[in-house]
């Protein structure tokens, strides 16, 4: 048994000695901080955890408050899903990339859509000019979706679709494709991101205002709980919030605040919390400060568990579990000396694994320059595989638990997250806080402070503001064929000429009427999708009925 009094005295004496030595040989900095500017002490000892109760703070893996992980065996049972986000150009090209990745050992699909698709515009819309197929695959109708998953059995893979404002439509298309493969919806596994609040906060691909957007989201919750029970209906996201400049604490706080808003909306819509909460999932970032990130994930699980059990009274333990996907931080990667990014991604992936993520995307080294080449994406996948098979960290559950530093950081992050959540509650919840620009302002301030730290040299980025070299521009970057836009427009013209126009019109009218009432919108959207109405036509009707979101920008 540790004699705490003795330890305290010894530590004090030790610190005094160190301070004395520092006078002649000072430490590297006056103040040491984490990547998010949280203060870091010289040393952590059992004293820092002296009052911690194991069962209150940590518990056992798979048990409340899930600090140590949401499953008892974690990676001893099964590795995290290696799920690389991919998609570009046409459905044919993306289909080929998906087949390549599945062959190389990837275990789940993750679909990236282009901006027109994400914003509900067809490839021939004036605003789509120059954007078609650039940041993801262009999907204008069910026809494109069929090509995207051609030869990929939807009952054998799990698919995550990064789609938000028009998520209902893309989900309907996925279900319709499965139908054609003879697969019923209850066999489908996957996720739609479907998190509109973070679009307003940080990502910018919104369409409709908050109220109708929340209605679409809760309609999806309800529809899936009955018809697509293995589907994760939302991926409440912190990734983009962090990329926009938030600190680790803000990333967790604003994400969980959004989560609270979604749960409240669903309850208001008449759903029972245990009906939909087990299918909520989250999406976090992994930046460079390895230990801070690990602490962040653990704190997030603990805070959410309490929110679900104590604030919302959920009874099903599955409702208390924060399950999440992680992507390594794109904004941390440099255009300078891009091979260095492989090392950054390795540290970040390691943080996610040590933090207990359920699935992981690792960025490719050319991230700051363009979409990844086949070779770059393979290295990114190998990074995960080496961690899984060679590093040993997956052989036991939550290996860093008990580290005096990690546990202190976890506690500190939890505390600050709770302060933010209280503040947002006081403002009336996440939706109100967004309307008032509070969350956006906090993030902007952090982003600006970060930039100034880098420019002042207080934060070092290797290859960028230290250890620079003169470089030639990198060769062999991926270029999206600019003819993609033209090809899509042709396809659209053909589609419009060959489909049953009356059926399309009728389906769109039914959708319009449904949108004016309170019925669940998934069935009419499914009908519209099956009739080969385009995404732009479906979203066009909803735009007319719901209006468009006008952001509140503060400085």
């Amino acid at each position: 048994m540790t004699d705490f009094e003795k330890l305290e005295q010894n530590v004090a004496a030790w610190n005094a000695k160190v301070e004395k030595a520092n006078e002649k040989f000072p430490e590297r900095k006056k103040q040491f901080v984490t990547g998010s500017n949280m203060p870091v002490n010289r040393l952590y000892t059992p004293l820092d955890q002296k009052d911690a109760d194991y069962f209150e703070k940590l518990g056992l893996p798979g048990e409340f408050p899930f600090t140590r992980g949401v499953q008892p065996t974690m990676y001893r049972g099964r590795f995290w899903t290696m799920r690389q986000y991919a998609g570009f150009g046409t459905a044919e090209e993306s289909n080929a990339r998906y087949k390549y990745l599945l062959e190389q050992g990837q275990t789940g699909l993750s679909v990236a859509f282009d901006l027109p698709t994400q914003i509900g515009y067809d490839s021939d819309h004036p605003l789509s000019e120059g954007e078609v197929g650039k940041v993801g695959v262009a999907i204008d109708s069910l026809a494109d979706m069929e090509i995207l998953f051609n030869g990929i059995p939807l009952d054998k893979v799990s698919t995550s679709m990064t789609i938000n404002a028009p998520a209902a439509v893309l989900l309907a298309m996925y279900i319709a494709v499965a139908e054609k493969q003879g697969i019923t919806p209850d066999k489908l596994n996957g996720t739609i991101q479907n998190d509109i609040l973070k679009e307003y906060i940080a990502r910018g691909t919104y369409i409709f205002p908050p109220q109708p957007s929340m209605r679409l989201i809760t309609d999806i919750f309800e529809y899936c709980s009955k018809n697509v029970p293995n589907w994760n209906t939302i991926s409440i996201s912190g990734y983009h919030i962090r990329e926009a400049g938030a600190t680790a604490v803000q990333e967790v706080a604003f994400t969980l605040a959004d989560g609270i808003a979604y749960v409240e909306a669903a309850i208001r819509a008449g759903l029972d919390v245990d009906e939909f909460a087990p299918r909520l999932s989250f999406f976090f970032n992994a930046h460079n400060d390895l230990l801070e990130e690990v602490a962040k994930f653990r704190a997030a699980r603990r805070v959410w568990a309490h929110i679900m059990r104590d604030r919302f009274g959920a009874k099903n333990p599955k409702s208390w579990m924060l399950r999440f996907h992680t992507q390594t931080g794109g904004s941390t990667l440099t255009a300078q000396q891009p091979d260095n990014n492989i090392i950054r991604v390795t540290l970040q992936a390691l943080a996610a694994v040590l933090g207990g993520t359920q699935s992981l995307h690792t960025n490719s080294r050319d991230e700051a320059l363009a979409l990844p080449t086949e070779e770059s994406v393979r290295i990114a996948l190998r990074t995960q595989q080496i961690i899984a098979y060679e590093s040993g960290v997956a052989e036991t559950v939550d290996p860093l638990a008990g580290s005096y530093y990690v546990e202190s950081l976890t506690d500190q992050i939890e505390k600050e997250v709770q302060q933010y959540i209280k503040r947002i509650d006081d403002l009336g919840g996440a939706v109100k806080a967004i309307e008032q620009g509070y969350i956006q302002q906090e993030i902007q301030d952090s982003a600006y402070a970060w930039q100034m730290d880098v420019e002042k040299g207080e934060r070092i980025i290797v290859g960028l503001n230290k250890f620079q070299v003169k470089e030639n521009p990198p060769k062999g970057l991926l270029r999206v064929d600019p003819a993609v836009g033209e090809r899509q427009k042709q396809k659209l013209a053909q589609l419009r000429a060959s489909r049953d126009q009356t059926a399309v019109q009728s389906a769109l009218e039914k959708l319009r009427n449904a949108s004016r009432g309170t019925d669940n919108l998934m069935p009419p959207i499914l009908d519209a999708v099956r009739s080969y109405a385009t995404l732009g036509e479906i979203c066009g009707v909803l735009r007319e009925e719901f209006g468009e979101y006008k952001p509140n920008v503060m400085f």
Partner: protein
Amino acid sequence: MNELVRRCLEGDVRAVARFITHLENGDRAAFAALYRLKDHAGNAQVVGITGPPGAGKSTLADKLIAEFRKMRKKVGVLAVDPSSPFSGGAILGDRLRMQGHATDPGVFIRSLASRGSLGGISSATHAAIRVLDAAGYDIVLVETVGVGQSEVDIVRVADTVVLVSVPGLGDDIQVIKAGIMEIGDIFVVNKADRDGADKVVREIRVMLETQAQLRAGNAPAGGPDTLVAREPDMLHHAGLVPRTAGTEAALPPVLKTIAETGEGVPQVAQAILTHFEEWKNSGALAQKRLDSISWQLRQFVQHEISIILEQPGPAGTTQELAKKVLARKTDIYSAGLALLHEVFKEGAAHESTQA
């Protein structure tokens, strides 16, 4: 410069924009060219939109522009935002909410930084309004910073002042701040879907009634503490519109809007146009224009004097006189008179070179 002015009068957008820049930079030639215009001003209705930050002024302006455009009126907008006292720079963010009108040739939107003028309404703002008027815009919206002095200054330049409040900003004090109630011709309670909207409407109406009672010589219903003392020329402005005290119809309209959706905005647009008509008919507009021009003349003179004071001659004299006062060789009054004489001499000399 004359070429630039000519193009402005023809409505050339680039010329108008350039000319406003010259005015902002204090270009004396630009001011002179503007003030030489005799025939081209006085048609536009100048509408001031003021209120606290977060009230939704820009969103309201955006929707009002749409309403006026439906009536085929050309609209000019000046949106003023504060300059940073530290760097002198500014982020001008009002335009963002009106960008939907960017490509409409009948709409001109210009963002102005306050550049040190306390209320944001500088002589440049005033001059810019004249330019837009001369260039043929039917309505000129002036959106201000919305705190303190600017709310008062807006009276100088606007024919119609729209005062925007919003429920739940914490206190009712925003409504009864010194001078504010006096300057509003139209009161808008925006974000009217929020809790407390009706309460704000009621409070404003009570204040307006009390004001009317006081002007009619009666004691205010709520007691003398419900009103705060204000400057005489504020009362002057309010008193310009002959209102029959006590009747509901005679009081300024108090309207509810949800600017985000456009609800209530057509009524505000109508109230704005009606106010202008009433003014024109009652002769109050002519009086107001007269007062405004008098003010501009005084501003012009003060501006010229301050420029003269900055010239090397007078500036040097100022320094010498100051030293004399410090050394107790003379007093401020005598020194001041001496400086004034020099200013007049300089001014006269300057005038002859201008003519």
